[in-house]
């Protein structure tokens, strides 16, 4: 049995800090269950992960993380509206077939969501495309275009535009480098220098009401 990790990957640690004690958490694309294992142990959450990778599912079961074999693109409708406190999706948005629909579903299932994804607007990507005319391959985007699971890459600006269009409120944004560290340059010009962003999302306040 693998215990919960004592040190959490930096982005997951940043997310974990946002999760209240005892919350009900759904993790879309939970991987080997690092985040949920940590949250179970340190935050006493009631958490479930969705995953389709066989080995990762077994890893979750092995460490006592609730894991459900289910495709995010197909099977979120079975989760009741407001049945969770928080839905998390780390570095999975770019791999789903219908990102906009998944975001809508996240914010239907829970009032709050956390989404992280790699930035296709990073200056290396831009330079790569501009100078070589080829699809970028970088540290945080290591796949060739023809065999990448990342079928819906976007920039931070693209994502924020989508949120505005779908009526999703961005409650916080943390932009980090490829090693999940923030710095001043990134904070200033995040869509150019940020590698990964962690977004907190909520439903837009109903018209005529303030929150």
């Amino acid at each position: 049995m693998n215990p919960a990790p004592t040190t959490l990957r930096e982005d997951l640690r940043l997310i974990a800090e946002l999760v209240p004690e005892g919350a009900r958490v759904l993790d879309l694309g939970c991987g080997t269950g690092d985040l949920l294992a940590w949250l179970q142990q340190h935050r006493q959450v009631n958490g479930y992960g969705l995953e389709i990778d066989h080995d990762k599912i077994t890893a979750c079961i092995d460490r006592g993380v609730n894991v459900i074999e289910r495709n995010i693109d197909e099977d979120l409708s079975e989760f009741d509206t407001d049945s969770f406190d928080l839905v998390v999706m780390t570095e999975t948005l770019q791999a789903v077939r219908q990102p906009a629909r998944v975001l809508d579903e996240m914010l239907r299932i829970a009032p709050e969501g956390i989404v992280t994804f790699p930035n296709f607007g990073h200056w290396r990507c831009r330079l790569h495309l501009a100078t070589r005319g080829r699809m970028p391959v970088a540290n945080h985007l290591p796949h060739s275009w023809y065999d990448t699971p990342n079928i819906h890459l976007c920039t931070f600006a693209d994502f924020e535009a989508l949120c505005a269009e779908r009526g999703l409120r961005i409650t916080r944004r943390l932009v980090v480098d490829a090693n999940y560290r923030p710095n001043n340059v990134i904070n200033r010009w995040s869509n150019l220098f940020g590698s990964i962003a962690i977004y907190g999302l909520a439903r837009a306040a109903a018209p005529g009401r303030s929150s």
Partner: protein
Amino acid sequence: MTALPSDSVGIVVPQHVAFDSPLSLTCGAVLDRHELVYETYGTLNAERSNAVLVCHALSGHHHAAGYHHESDRKPGWWETCIGPGKPMDTNRFFIVSLNNLGGCHGSTGPGSVNPETGQVFGPDFPAITVRDWVRSQVMLADHLGIEQWAAVVGGSLGGMQALQWSIDFPERVRHVVAIACAPRLSAQNIAFNEIARQAIYSDPCFHGGRYAEHGVAPTQGLMLARMVGHVTYQSDDGLREKFGREVASGDLEFARDVQFQVESYLHYQGRSFSQRFDANTYLLMTRALDYFDPAQEYGDDLAAAFARSQASYLLVSFTTDWRFSSERSRELVDALVRARRNVSHADIDAPYGHDAFLLPIARYMDVFGAYMDRVGSEASA
């Protein structure tokens, strides 16, 4: 010297227990006394925290693992999963496997003598439900001094018993493993069971279930019933892979007396089953399967049925199982999530239909093993 495989529990001896306290059944009848036959594998630890109950499916019995004699050709029915180093590891767990009430392998059933009449029960044996089985299994747990099962495990109808345990006796089950299971049967599923029952009823030797008094048995009907069942427990691809259109005998070119391989296979399966199984028990068990519906008394709200449960759950389904499809396991998952129970679900890609739960499929063994490993760590913590 024994030639038995080293990953087998080896020679096992069935045990009997008689309960003299009355058992009230769902149908209203009361059994004043009943007997169960069971086997155990592994050793109960001092804390009595490592006991696992194995519940059998429609045609199962107490002999789940090991061999009765050194010359036995076949081991118990779940040998793939029970034994040293296997998912239900006998080095860690004390495993109990019984023949259910109403069975025909040594537990009190339609073939037993009714103490009130001195005659064999036959069709007069009361209807039994999954809930009744669980109650009688509770008496067995008490007899063995097991306050709480580390896990209750079963496939198909066995999985239904495991679920029922967690609903009716929440404080006595830590984990439920329900494999190729469903929260209740679909109309199609009940329909297949009814065809099987009609096959038995229509056998001239059935005599309204009193065939024992006539010194005969409805083997032809039972054989037909099993053939129908057997086909539905397999997948189209599985049968194609195993038999294709291979001919066993006859002349295909002249379309004369042809028997396809799949036919002779079915005949063999049906015939051998009809020789070792009792028709009244088959009727009773298919009825229990049809009646199972734990959500019914909770206004058809399955999540409400699990509200009092304290167990954690592992559900396993198989992609080509069309009698207990993956979708049915997903229904269970959704209800358990709503009920805030711990639950994991793996959907195993295998071409063997419902019967896959008896087979050593690599990913299935990994998932099952990983889960039981965790159950075992808790039991010894």
